[in-house]
């Protein structure tokens, strides 16, 4: 079992949410104070270093035109971390390959990071959430096809060492691919792919890459992992899928006592409550298949308030649905274990451990409490090569 400290590097100093339409895409950047932003970066980098000191590994991601994640060029921040850290694995999850025009450039950036970190890179690829297509001016139709062509080309660029090769594909054209440097790790850095749908996970399983899913909870995570295992087996990788092929991202906050844990968990909820985004950014044409889109339109028309029927999000509710593990070390352990068994097991916990107004000392307390009092039990109990989904 590996645990990864993940921070989206949010910029929380915003006007009241009623005063803006969306926290993503069109929120004017005059709300961003460069001095405050720089101080936040100092802090977030420190927190990643503290996570490393505590034995956790490090994860970061990339979003664009949003206050929820002010990291529009994750490879740059990872470059800083490669020099600030010494032993932690460095996971970028990930490169928004469907939204970038030059896959070979991504191959170069990742190879460079692998060299700078002396082989500590874990390289994730994502399709990108719907809100990313406008900032990237990226066509929301056929993103999966672009993603897979780009990923295959990147892996090829990492693993060919005998001079230029050419690629004339459906979406990308390169006549002279011959990257310098090549990666430190051989044959290439571990590849991760995020997918929250069963169809996507199956393909990841066929390739044997690490499958990560974010905040899919009790309801949807099992199906994603089942599909991964089906793809893995169909591709002839054997019957047994080790848990180190599967990752789950949740909000996690641990503290010595219940009241501190509760206070931290409340602040972490910002991740979800702060994500104010109108429907037309959430659901661009082509992002979801027409039949799925049609179903959503039908249910919205039948029940316009359906999405809000459950009332406001609470810590209890997100713990109950498997989006958050929070409490004392014993409570977090028990919540984790219950979820782990429900979904069939996974070997990477991606800890969304900072959000919004969770201050530095609170964030560090959460990291330390988890690393010292929960993590050792998980590592002991769930070895990396434990078989996932036994009997499923």
């Amino acid at each position, binding site marked *: 079992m590996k645990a990864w400290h993940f921070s989206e590097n949010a910029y929380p100093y915003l006007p009241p949410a009623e005063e803006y339409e969306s926290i993503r895409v069109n929120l004017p950047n005059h709300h961003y104070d460069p001095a405050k932003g720089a101080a936040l970066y100092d802090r977030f980098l420190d927190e990643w270093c503290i996570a490393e000191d505590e034995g956790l590994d490090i994860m970061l991601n990339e979003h664009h035109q949003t206050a929820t994640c002010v990291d529009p060029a994750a490879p740059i921040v990872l470059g800083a971390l490669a020099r600030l850290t010494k032993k932690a694995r460095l996971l970028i999850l990930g490169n928004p390959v469907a939204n970038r025009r030059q896959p070979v450039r991504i191959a170069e950036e990742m190879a460079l990071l692998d060299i700078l970190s002396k082989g500590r890179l874990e390289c994730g690829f994502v399709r990108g959430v719907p809100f990313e297509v406008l900032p990237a001016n990226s066509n929301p139709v056929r993103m999966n096809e672009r993603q897979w062509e780009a990923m295959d080309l990147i892996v090829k660029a990492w693993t060919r060492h005998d001079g230029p090769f050419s690629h004339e594909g459906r979406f990308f054209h390169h006549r002279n691919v011959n990257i310098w440097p090549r990666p430190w790790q051989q044959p290439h850095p571990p590849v991760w792919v995020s997918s929250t749908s069963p169809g996507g996970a199956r393909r990841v399983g066929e390739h044997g890459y690490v499958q990560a899913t974010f905040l899919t909870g009790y309801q949807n995570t099992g199906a994603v992992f089942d599909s991964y295992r089906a793809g893995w087996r169909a591709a002839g990788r054997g019957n047994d899928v080790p848990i180190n092929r599967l990752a789950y991202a949740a909000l996690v906050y641990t503290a010595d006592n219940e009241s501190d844990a509760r206070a931290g968990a409340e602040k972490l909820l910002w991740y979800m409550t702060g994500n104010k985004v109108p429907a037309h950014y959430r659901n661009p044409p082509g992002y979801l298949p027409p*039949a799925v889109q049609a179903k959503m339109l039908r249910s919205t028309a039948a029940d316009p308030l359906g999405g809000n029927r459950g009332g406001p999000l609470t810590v209890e509710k997100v713990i109950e649905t498997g989006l958050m593990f929070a409490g004392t070390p014993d409570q977090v352990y028990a919540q984790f274990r219950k979820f782990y068994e429900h979904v069939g097991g996974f070997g990477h916990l991606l800890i969304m451990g900072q959000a919004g107004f969770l201050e530095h000392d609170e964030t560090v307390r959460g990291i330390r409490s988890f690393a010292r009092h929960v993590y050792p039990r998980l590592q002991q109990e769930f070895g990396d090569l434990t078989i996932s989904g036994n009997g499923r």
Partner: protein
Amino acid sequence: MSGAANNPDSRRVAIADVELDVIERGQGAPLLYLHGGAGIAGDHAFIDLLAQHRRVIAPSHPGFGTSSLPDWLDTVEDIAHIHLALLDRLGVATVDLVGMSLGGWIAADMASKNPERFPRVALIGPIGVKTGPSDKLDIPDIFAMPEAAVEKLRFHDPEKQKADINQMTDEQLIVMTRNNETLALLTWEPFMHDPKLKHRLHRVTAPVLLLRGVSDGIVSADYLARYARLFPNVSIKTIAEAGHAAQIEQPQATAKAILEFLQ
């Protein structure tokens, strides 16, 4: 999905690896009608009016209605080639051309390729060219606004034209979302235009009529005037009490203007 379920008089025509749904209605000299980005479903009243005087051929474009969409196809120009081949298949040597919005773009592209084939060309709220400055969109970004705002641009009286999802079959709802997906595929970048088209329209020497609903929020009067300058032989006409989809809001007046022009 069956096209026949939506349009009793449609049939399937295979052009290369595309299966097109094609409506043929009426008698007389042929007229090719090319629908806009919302698909053909709302255009039947308008097509019927044209078909009282002409043999109307009205395909659903690849990816619209129940016409298929091959993996390789992603531009308006690709569709222009398919529809030129459709005319070959139907044995239609020359034909008057009527296109609405996206269909107007396809029509303009077809006419620029085979100008001798189209004696007269009528375009309703056509898109497809970029003539304004680089720091201002010629066409509003319909992919970055709420649905209700788009409807305001499309219609003079959006309340009256409001689609009731509860009255639609699953099949119709899927067609609607698929149309929107194909529209995005074709028009996302460059946005709503082909940078080359404006340099090719000088070939279209046939008489061209440009029509526009007076309340069209997608194609502005200024945009249409600049579009008109690209054709050697052109006139402009405005349809009263209509928005972008003039053929839906004012089918009589729109059909009348076109039929008069084609006479």
